[in-house]
């Protein structure tokens, strides 16, 4: 057991992470039938975690030395799986983000999930997730991180398939788990590789000088394998199709897991191992490439989607790709800063959409607009703010973080990355405001349906005194405030995270400024194009992409990735290899055993002939044996 740094810190971290776990166990075991108590317990635990994380942030606001505490959890031979914490600026920042969003989403769920028969189960799984995610952020070794990585995946599975009577929901949960599992096996193999060469090493040591002792090939291979896990968890190319399907889960789940925290765990891991990954320029360029591809692909998919949650899901993939681009290009602070701001405005986007979905019982953007979505004032305003942040409109937080990333990309030698980044900004603004304008300014006569049947959780249109609505509204307001304010905290955040001198590549001032203006201009033009096509009076409501049916179909079918996977799993694995194994079992192995048995039986039957009751055969046998013996003994 080693520890550097204060005991108080360690106890606070323990409290912060274990409170939700205790809540999970208690709810699951004892309180399945008492929803209010479960929700209260869960939210209480998360408040505690939130308070602890803020306290930790205040205690360690000067940055500086990392606190690490490890104790031996399991020992087998010379394999040690330690359990402990690592508190440094990055993990603290992530911890605060996670705790905040967990708290806000759980409060929001009080309104959204009210009346659901699985209410207690929902909060139990939410607590499970909070525990796993927070423990992931403070893990001192890759082993522990891997353990909680998988546990986060498990809670994702449980929450996506929450409404389990619905086949598509369980299907989506299974798909999410299996896809992330595939990435996780790559992660695990990378972990094994590092263990093979360096033994039971912690993250700090991995980032330190010891890792330089490895050969470059090993470093690159390990980095690529670990990045496999990141690809799975953060839904990058090619393991990206599970995230849109994961929208089957309740909207708060989408807000928490699949936008702000769980999928961000991949980017977090990247940031965590940034010094280690930087040792291999090959790997970093590959990461840059994959991030770019994901960003552009997902942005194209978002442009043609009709489902509001799926738009934001594609957007998440795209923004995560953007973060990975930044990190891959060497911009440590830029990537982490965008992670922080993205958590804020993406969660806000989802939560606002959730209010619409909850009220109008439809996910379709056109229908939402047609049914009078704009009338819900608070969600609409917050949605607009969030979309503006997403597009990078100043002075919202998204503008600052995107500018940082563009600055990093501009510092690279090859201008293609910068071009890709700028294209991404344009597309992002376009699709974000497509949604806004479709919601805000519906065309009359568009999918005019009968007013929605009154749901048992009826919400008054202007958000009156209904308590559910209040539960849903306050987190929106808080997040909107954060989105507005966060950008101004850039410099203090930079000091906290990386010290007064900026780490990583940032372009020279002039180049930086030019790229920044270009980005702003492109964002603005994206908004204008969206206005032109969807917003203004008499617009055709058909995007420029949809005018090219081939392209539109390509984007809508997710670039046929799903078809590929269905083919791979269904035909190759299921009907191909699995079938072969099964037939092998039946025909070959069992067949040979059956042949052996049949042969034995037949042999017995033949030998029985000798003893059959034909007297004369017996005579013949005796005679033959006697002749044989006579010959044998005479020669």
């Amino acid at each position: 057991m080693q520890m550097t740094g204060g005991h108080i810190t360690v106890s606070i971290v323990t409290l912060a992470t274990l409170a939700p776990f205790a809540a999970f166990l208690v709810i699951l075991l004892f309180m399945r039938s008492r929803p209010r108590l479960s929700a209260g317990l869960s939210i209480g635990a998360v408040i505690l975690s939130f308070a602890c994380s803020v306290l930790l942030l205040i205690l360690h606001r000067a940055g500086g030395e990392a606190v690490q505490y490890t104790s031996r959890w399991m020992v087998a031979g010379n394999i040690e799986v330690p359990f402990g914490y690592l508190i440094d600026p990055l993990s603290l920042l992530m911890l605060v983000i996670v705790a905040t969003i967990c708290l806000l989403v759980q409060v929001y769920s009080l309104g959204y999930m009210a009346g659901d028969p699985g209410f207690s189960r929902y909060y139990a799984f939410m607590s499970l997730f909070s525990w796993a995610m927070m423990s992931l952020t403070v893990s001192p070794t890759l082993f522990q991180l891997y353990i909680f990585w998988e546990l986060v995946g498990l809670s994702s599975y449980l929450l996506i398939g929450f409404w389990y009577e619905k086949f598509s929901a369980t299907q989506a949960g299974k798909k999410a788990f299996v896809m992330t599992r595939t990435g996780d096996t790559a992660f695990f193999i990378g972990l094994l590789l590092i263990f093979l060469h360096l033994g039971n090493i912690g993250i700090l040591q991995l980032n330190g000088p010891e890792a330089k002792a490895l050969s470059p090939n090993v470093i690159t291979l390990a980095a690529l394998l670990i990045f496999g896990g990141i690809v799975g968890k953060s839904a990058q190319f090619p393991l990206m199709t599970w995230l849109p399907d994961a929208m089957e889960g309740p909207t708060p789940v989408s807000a928490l897991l699949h936008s702000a925290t769980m999928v961000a765990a991949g980017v977090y891991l990247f940031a965590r191992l940034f010094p280690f990954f930087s040792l291999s320029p090959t790997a970093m360029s590959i990461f840059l490439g994959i991030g770019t591809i994901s960003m552009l692909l997902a942005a194209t998919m978002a442009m043609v989607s009709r489902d509001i949650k799926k738009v934001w899901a594609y957007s998440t993939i795209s923004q995560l790709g953007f973060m990975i681009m930044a990190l891959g290009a060497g911009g440590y602070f830029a990537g982490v800063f965008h992670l922080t701001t993205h958590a804020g405005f993406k969660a806000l986007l989802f939560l606002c959409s959730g209010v619409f979905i909850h009220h109008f019982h439809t996910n379709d953007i056109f229908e939402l607009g047609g049914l009078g979505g704009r009338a819900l004032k608070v969600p609409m305003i917050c949605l607009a703010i969030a979309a503006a942040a997403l597009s990078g409109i100043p002075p919202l937080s998204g503008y600052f973080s995107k500018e940082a990333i563009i600055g990093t990309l501009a510092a690279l030698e090859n201008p293609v990355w910068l071009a890709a980044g700028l294209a991404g900004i344009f597309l992002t603004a376009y699709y974000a405001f497509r949604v806004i304008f479709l919601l805000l300014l519906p065309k009359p006569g568009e999918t005019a349906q009968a007013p929605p049947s009154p749901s048992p959780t009826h919400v008054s249109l202007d958000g009156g005194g209904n308590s559910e609505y209040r539960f849903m509204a306050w987190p929106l307001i808080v997040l909107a405030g954060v989105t507005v304010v966060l950008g101004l905290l850039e410099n203090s955040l930079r000091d906290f995270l990386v010290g007064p001198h900026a780490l990583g590549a940032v372009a020279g001032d002039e180049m930086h400024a030019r790229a920044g203006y270009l980005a702003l201009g492109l964002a603005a033009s994206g908004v204008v194009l969206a206005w032109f096509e969807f917003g203004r009076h008499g617009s055709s409501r058909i995007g420029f992409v949809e005018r090219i049916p081939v392209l539109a179909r390509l984007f809508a079918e997710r670039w046929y990735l799903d078809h590929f996977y269905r083919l791979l799993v269904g035909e190759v694995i299921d009907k191909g290899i699995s079938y072969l194994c099964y037939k092998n079992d039946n025909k070959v192995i069992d067949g040979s055993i059956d042949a052996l048995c049949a042969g034995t039986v037949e042999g017995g039957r033949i030998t029985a002939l000798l003893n059959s009751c034909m007297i004369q055969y017996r005579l013949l046998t005796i005679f033959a044996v006697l002749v044989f013996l006579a010959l044998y003994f005479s020669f």
Partner: protein
Amino acid sequence: MHYATFPFLSAILLSCVAGMSAIVFIPEDRKTLIKWVSAVFSGITLVLSLCLFFAYDRNTGGLQFVERLSWIPQLGIQYLNGVDGFSLPNLLLTGIVFFTGVLTMWELEHRVKEFYALYFLLVTGVFGLFMSLDLFFIFVWYDVSLFPMYLLIAIWGTTRKEYGAMKLTLYLLAGSALILPAIVLLYVKSGLGTFDLTALLKPGLFSADQQKLAFILLYLGFGVLAGLWPFHTWSPVGHVAAPTGVSMVHAGVLMKIGAFGVLRLAIMLCPLGWRYWAELMAVLATIGIVYGALTALRQTDLKYVIGYSSVSHMGVVGLGLSTMTAEGLDGAVFQMFAHGIMTALLFSSVGYIYDRTHTKLIPELGGLSRIMPVASGYFIVAALAGMGVPGLANFWGELVVFISAFKVYPVRGIAAVLALVITALFMLRVIQRTFYGPENHHRRGKGARQKILDPRFEPEISSLSQRHQDVERKTRQLQRKVYGKKLVGADQKHHREGAGE
């Protein structure tokens, strides 16, 4: 070697034998009494094995609680028991599975007396093999645990029981036919004239060739019992055919005997043989892991799925044993324990489901989570454990095995890790088809295959909570029709409270 002050091991054996004798003397129409007596005696063995587990001194290690009684001195056969770090968790496992197995079969009505008597005999053999240190007795216990399996499956079994029982018995007898010459070889060639394992552990007794021969015979012989590929096909068939409690013992404990036999006899007595054959062991184990998972993907009977996943997990044990490292052996033994518990839970849940729905075929099941939430929860937890979700038991065993395997056999280690994905795929698929989704209204039971509505063509739901209530209402109606008021009343109360305000 520490001799026992209180003969725990013999006490365990004695309580099994005493239980069996007690059952034999109870008249067969007093079924409840028989069950209670069984529960009491199996409870005693559980308590004893727990005490043993905690009384074992971990700091000293080695063989403890040794009991020695000379039996046939002319042949060197002794009644010799002892426990060390390898057999300790297995003894505890047997105690747990035995007790829970007795409880699981509580609703048995047909020939209860014979069943429990044979069950006790079976577990006596299992316990005996784990604790015995005399080669002769190890062989005897192996066969003692073998023949009750035949009767138990052939009389109380379900799907294709005669075929399953015959196949299982013949395969395992073939395995013992390989073990016996190896034991005799070791006995004769040692020159010591004794079957005592502790004496035969002396280094340098056997030449390298003898060790190689003995090792491969023992490995194949015990490997058949442990579900070694390609001699594994008896196992899924036997699992399916056996009644629930017997399946629990079969998958939970009997297959561990095989792995344990490899460990106790082959590895400890013939280390040179171990080194020679380790590569082959690793190859067969890895094939078993991947193959078992792939074959489980195609199965439509719940018990077949669990049976093939057992083959896969026992492959992990085999892989750990083949690494020739201390960590590998540790991981293998832990995996034995973890898998035993997990699979006993799975079979227990399946038995529960079968009792209530009268079918084990996945196409006929669906939406069980609504009707039996608690049993579904248990199955799901066990299935998650089987997938290697961290925090649950199997993860730690597999982690250690994969780490040590990767060190020694990188390629095979990677293949084994990749099988994790396939395992997740089929386990989740089983959970989804059996417990989640809409309820399967065409369920008839008794193995009749009906046309199933393909739920994938349900229209995309946009109004979630409304539809949710519809499903709830319909489910309640069906429940009332099929299961009667009592169950529905209790469930309704649960849902009413759960539905909140």
